Every structure is written in structure tokens, then in C-alpha cells.
């Protein structure tokens, strides 16, 4: 998930365009000959995939421990050249973003819950509201 819009699509889109396998939310990566074993964090726990190379991986928080920046590197960072390449120079169709934000709204405030007298009544209610 990108840190700006949380869309969770860049890696997946790239894999689809390239027709390469994808291993997203990788929390552990092990290279084998011609393949990569990716452990992914999914809602239910951990899933391990084996992908033929080349593949697209996206990293999860737990994949790595970031290094500490060293003091000399912090000072050098300011002096590093920042090369700006216009998108057109790379043959990428530039122009306005193709994603338009139509509306941003808060989720509806939590409505109060309801107490029921018995388990049967609970199951009835759940069935009626289409939850089961």
C-alpha cells in the first residue's frame, strides 16, 4: 500500500502489465535457483508462495530492519545531485493524472447496537439482515 493513497495497486498493476507473477506484502524473501520463495502476510496468517523469476514483489513492514543512517551519510545526502527527468523524456505519456478524486467523506458514525434475549433471536436477526 502506497503511503500516500493506500491504494495497494502499483505492484499488482505492474505484474499484470508485464505478465509476471506477483508476491505482495512480502515479509520474508528467499531466493532459489530461478525462483523466489515469498512469505506473505495475509488476513488469516502467513502464506508462502513460490514464484518463478522474474517476478514482482512488494515489501511489507516486517521484511527488513532499516539500517541506521550514518552521520557522514546524513551530511553527504544534502550534497547529492538531484536529477530531474521530465516524464516526456522517458517516453511516458505525461499529462494530468488519470485518477480523479470525486469525493472524500467520513465513515457514518457508529449506530447503537441492539441486545437480543437468546441465541435463536440472534441467528434470526443475522439471517434477516443478510449477514448469514
Amino acid at each position, binding site marked *: 500500500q502506497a503511503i500516500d493513497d493506500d491504494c495497494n495497486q502499483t505492484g499488482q498493476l505492474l505484474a499484470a502489465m508485464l505478465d509476471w507473477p506477483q508476491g505482495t506484502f512480502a515479509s520474508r524473501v528467499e531466493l532459489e535457483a530461478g525462483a523466489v520463495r515469498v512469505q506473505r502476510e495475509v488476513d488469516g496468517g502467513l502464506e508462502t508462495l513460490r514464484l518463478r523469476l522474474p517476478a514482482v514483489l512488494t515489501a511489507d*513492514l*516486517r521484511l527488513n530492519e532499516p539500517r*541506521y*543512517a*550514518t*552521520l*557522514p551519510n*546524513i*551530511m553527504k545526502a544534502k550534497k547529492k545531485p538531484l536529477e530531474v527527468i521530465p516524464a516526456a523524456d522517458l517516453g511516458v505519456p505525461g499529462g494530468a493524472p488519470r485518477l480523479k478524486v470525486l469525493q472524500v467523506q467520513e465513515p457514518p458514525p457508529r449506530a447503537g447496537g441492539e441486545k437480543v434475549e437468546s441465541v435463536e433471536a440472534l441467528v434470526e436477526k443475522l439471517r434477516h439482515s443478510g449477514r448469514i
Partner: protein
Amino acid sequence: ARPGTAMAMALAWRAAPRAAARLLLGRRGIASCIDPSTGLTEDQKEFQKVALDFAAKEMAPYMAEWDEKEIFPVEMMRKAAQLGFGGIYVKPDVGGSGLSRLDTSIIFEALSTGCTSTTAYMSIHNMCVWMIDTFGSEEQRRRFCPSLCSMERFASYCLTEPGSGSDAASLLTSAQRKGDTYILNGSKAFISGGGDTDVYVVMCRTGGPGPKGISCLVLEKGMPGLSFGKKEKKVGWNSQPTRAVIFEDCVVPVGNRLGAEGQGFSIAMQGLNGGRINIASCSLGAAHASVLLAQEHLTVRKQFGEPLANNQYLQFRLAEMATRLVAARLMVRNAARALQDGREDAAVLCSMAKLFATDECFGICNQALQMHGGYGYLKDYAVQQFVRDIRVHQILEGTNEVMRMIVARNLLQG
């Protein structure tokens, strides 16, 4: 920081009973009146961030163990040196980081929140490397500084003797010239790192009495005639060994002398100007950590049916602690700027800063302990270690009484 990061790290730290550790990650007193990053440049904020991260991860979880078992954490310090913390204000051509005194103060203040005792030793080490870097010949700088900046070797500063503490210029360790060597006889007391460190910057008498007869020699462990006393048992600063250093017909090549004969006392005092800012910075870090601990305790602990934080007396005390912390920090940073700018009043400002900050910060840590009630007295809680570790800051690198002498002299004779 993203919530995931804080949670992931907090989970890893659940094993550490140090509330300080959790606090350092979760709330560093940022976005509050005691935020230590206010007024800093972008670069300085980066340095501070690295130091705070390092302190929270590599030091805070172990500070209690290092204190209890009297462990000198060599591996951790070498890791710190890899980041550039071994020679912070030493020139880069011999392995230092070439930063300013203010940058240095910020870094030591941050590291001290993780373990004050070890950070204080690191500041002494840094001071010694700077002395060699600044007053040594090209050959001496290249011989000593690189391995010290990387902390492959560690250094100790040897001025105090059993018979001369505050009256440092009356030191007796003699260095008799014999051909192209000096023969040293005497002893030094209370040497931080003594016995475990490799390089010793020793002030000794080559000439007549008084400061002008003192020279500075660099000794190395293993030199014949160099031995050490027993490891002292201390109230705090237990993550660094303290021993007497003994010279018995110790032979030192003339090529190990820093600067000219008779220049030693001046070298020692110039080293101490920076050393005083560093020690004061260590006190600031301990006080900051203690204020955070007190803040947490006041919100969590309940008595008489409500959190302690609802009690106006305690609110006022916490406010006073915060105010004094910020005042002390400003004194220290002001002195650091004066020193790096080479101002004439730098030395006396360093003395004032050391006096004020070490006294105030001890009061802050002590008050934080009091706010913890009985729990503050238990070694399971970090606040008592901050109190014990910074108590000695009011004594060494020039007692706070000597600091007053320096300020008075400036006012009445200057």
C-alpha cells in the same frame, strides 16, 4: 511514524520491563514543550533521530543489565562508532565525523536517553580523540585517531590523582626526560575506562610546579611500568569500569607527547571545555527521559480515586521540571555555540552550562523518582538509574564548586 512501525517495535520490546524504552518509541516528548528538536536545522534533526533510534533500540533495553552486571558494552559502542559516534567532532581525514559542538551536544543528549553511563564514557572517549586530533602532530593523528574513531581501541583521560582533584595543576605524576623517552612515576585516580581501555591521555609533570610544568603524553596499554588498581565499586556509572592508573618507571617515547612541553595543562583544560558540554548534555538526556517517565506514571497511577495527574501539586512540579529542563538545554546549547564559534567567553559559558545543567537535571531526575513513590526506589524502574548515573556529573570534569570559581573569576577579574 506509521502505526505499524510503532506496534511492531513495541511487540519486540514487550519483554523489556523498561517503561522508558516504550516511551522512547511511542512518545519522545515531541510536539510538546520539552521537544528537544525545536530550533534545530534539518541536518541536526536527522542526527538526533539516528541517535534517538539507536538509543531506544541498542541501549535502553540493556541499560539495567549493564548497570547490574557492570558490563562495559564494547560491541554496542563499536556499532555506534560505525555510525560515526566514535569521533563526532574529530576531523574526517582521520576517521572523525567533523561535526560541530552543538551537533555533538544534541547527539549525546539523545544517546543518553538510552543509557547515560555508557554515553558519558563515549563522550570521554570522544574528548580524548579530539585532543590527539587537535594537538597531535600529523604522525600522531594518523597513528592514534583512526582506530579510536572506529572504537577498535578505546581511550581514557588521566588528569586526577589521589592528591589532586580540584587542584588539578598541583598534580605530581612526574615524567623525567631520559634520552628520547620519558620515565613516568606516579598514579592517577578515578580513571573512567581505566584497565579496559587501550589509549591513555596522561597529564604529567615535565617541568617546574604549577600548570606551566605540565605536559601531555599518550600511553598505551602494555607499555612496561603501566598497571591498574582494582575496579572501583560505584553508586552509578557501572557500565564503565573505573580504576587507578599506576606508573612505575613507565617508559614512554618522546614521540608520544602531544604538543610542546608545558602545554599539557592547556590541552587538558581545552579538552574539558568540550567535555563539560558533553557531560551536561548527558544530564539533559537523563532528565528528559525521567520527565517522560514521570509524565507516564502520573497518568497511569491512581490514588484517592483519580490519576495522580489530577493533583495540582504534581502538575505544578511536573511543569517546573519541564521548565528547568528547557532552561538547562538552552544553557548547554548556547555554550556549545560559543565554543564552536571560538568566542572568548566560551570557557566560562561551558562552566556555567555544566554547573546549571548538571544541578538542575539531577533535581529533575530526583523529583521524577519521588513522583513514582515506592516504585521509584526499585531497580525494576529505570528512573533510579538515571538518578544514580547523573549524580556524579555534578562532581567530575570539574566539580560544580570549581565551575563557580571559574565564573567568579570571570566576573571579578575579567
